[in-house]
């Protein structure tokens, strides 16, 4: 892991008064490489390393720790600071409140809608309704209906309707008529560069005015994480991000990439396929994971 590698690089720094760019270049190269291997986007890494150098250079070498430990702590703290807080709240003030999920194919939107419904039902005693607005994928509606049944929650769907914004509008009306106080809208997976399908989400947003628009993103995303986050954010002004599949062993550098490039908060993570496998985001745990 990173700390161990630095012990080596920093053995050379013993006796030095200050951390300087010169005597730390090898350590910085190591950190840079660790972040790239964690799949953090290259431009994000370069930006982060500039910030780290600023924070490190000129610092007095502390007596109680090795320079290696000291640098890792600076990097770790900087990473946590960048990741944002773990208190990102959901805006659920509507009658009903509306949450819209979006993201690439297979990122976990449909299962996350159900997990989020369960979580908010338990935590805030919300009366949730789910809206099956993926009209493209075979059995997408079936999938959400099965999940809704498992949760004993109503699912709005209409297999005859191919007009997604209209479908969502009807779902919202249905939620109002049935006295539900939260509507969670599942949408089809789409490429962030598919202008027509991204426009469909923009129209969906205009019609139902969601209180939360959350990007559901696979934590194992590679260098494209920045493009994915920025495109969805620029089109929709996201209110947050949900990172999925953290029960895998991806280092999760995409978290830093997406957070850094959009400034939007990571609100939840999912850690498995069970309904209960949704947790609030912990920036410190994510930082440690990325550093390996």
């Amino acid at each position, binding site marked *: 892991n990173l700390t161990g590698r630095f012990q080596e690089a920093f053995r050379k720094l013993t006796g030095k008064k200050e951390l300087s760019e010169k005597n730390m270049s090898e350590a910085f190269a190591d950190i840079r490489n660790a972040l790239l291997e964690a799949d953090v986007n290259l431009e994000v890494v370069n930006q982060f390393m500039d910030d780290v150098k600023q924070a490190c250079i000129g610092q007095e070498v502390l007596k109680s720790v090795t320079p290696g430990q000291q640098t890792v702590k600076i990097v770790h703290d900087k990473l946590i600071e960048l990741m944002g807080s773990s208190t990102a709240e959901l805006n659920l003030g509507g009658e009903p409140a509306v949450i819209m999920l979006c993201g690439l194919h297979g990122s976990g939107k449909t299962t996350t809608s159900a997990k989020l419904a369960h979580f908010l039902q338990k935590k805030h005693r919300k009366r949730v309704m789910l809206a099956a607005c993926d009209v493209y994928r075979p*059995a997408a509606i079936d999938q959400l209906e099965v999940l809704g049944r498992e949760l004993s929650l109503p699912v709005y769907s209409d297999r005859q309707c191919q007009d997604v914004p209209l479908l969502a509008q009807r779902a919202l009306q249905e939620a109002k008529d049935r006295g539900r106080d939260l509507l969670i809208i599942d949408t089809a997976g789409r*490429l962030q560069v598919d202008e027509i399908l991204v426009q469909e989400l923009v129209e969906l947003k205009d019609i139902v005015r969601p209180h939360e628009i959350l990007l559901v993103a696979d934590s194992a995303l590679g260098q494209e994480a920045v493009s994915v986050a920025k495109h969805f954010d620029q089109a929709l002004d996201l209110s947050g991000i949900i990172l999925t599949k953290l029960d895998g062993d991806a280092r999760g550098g995409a978290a830093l990439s997406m957070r850094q490039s959009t400034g939007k908060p990571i609100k939840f993570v999912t850690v498995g396929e069970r309904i209960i496998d949704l947790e609030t985001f912990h920036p410190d745990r994510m930082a440690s994971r990325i550093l390996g």
Partner: protein
Amino acid sequence: FSDVERWDEASYARLEATLISTDLGPSVSRRIVADVRDKYERGLINTDADILDSARTLILDILCRDGIQPIRLNENGPTVILLVGVNGSGKTTSAAKLTYHFRKLGKTIVLGAGDTFRAAGVTQLQLWGERLDCPVIGAPQGSDSAAVAFDAIKSGIQKKADFVIIDTAGRQHTRTDLMDELLKVKRICGKALPGAPHEIWLTVDASIGSNSLVQAKEFGKVFPITGLILTKLDGSGKGGVVVAIKEELGYPVQFIGLGEQMGDLQLFDPEMFVKAMF
């Protein structure tokens, strides 16, 4: 790169950045830049076009090493293809696309809807089967996945089908219980038809980074992976990680997925892939 007069540190940094952006990984990228730089400094290549071509050639060499492996066709019954991979990587859709692909070559197929775990896992493939007019063997959610594989192969034998394609539930390799289940599915395939499965293909999502290499390593510890299907290459991901997979593990890409429709599958063409990479 085309306005580069002579190659210097900045040009090499830009080349490394380009390679890293394709998810080739920092160490493979660094190594390729070093190899190219070595050739340039020894005067073996001169222009910026040479440099890019040289990088492409190095990557192509890795992809084409050991030649092209054709599908291991079974002489005594259907050829059984088992599709495995992490959650959401494109297995079910690829099963449908492969059916369409082989169908166009005049082959007959039986599909095994082996995802008996996920909500509508079986239903999804059954709907594809209806669109493709292809028989699908399934079972209710919660039933034994290996039993579906067994029944699908038996049905394929009985129908004298050319291929039996078995879909499995998505899983993370970090779950040893689920990896054990996959091994059981493989074993049961062999019980239904000795020698089956003849191909085990791992779906790799082109938007994912270095974890795909870990996935290939870990799935490959359960049984030999005989090929990859690189999905979602119509997206912005370049799928460079398959180069690392080929180099370290020897698994070749067999097909690429270029969309959500049944026709959006192509045989892997290494040259086209490398040209599209950068």
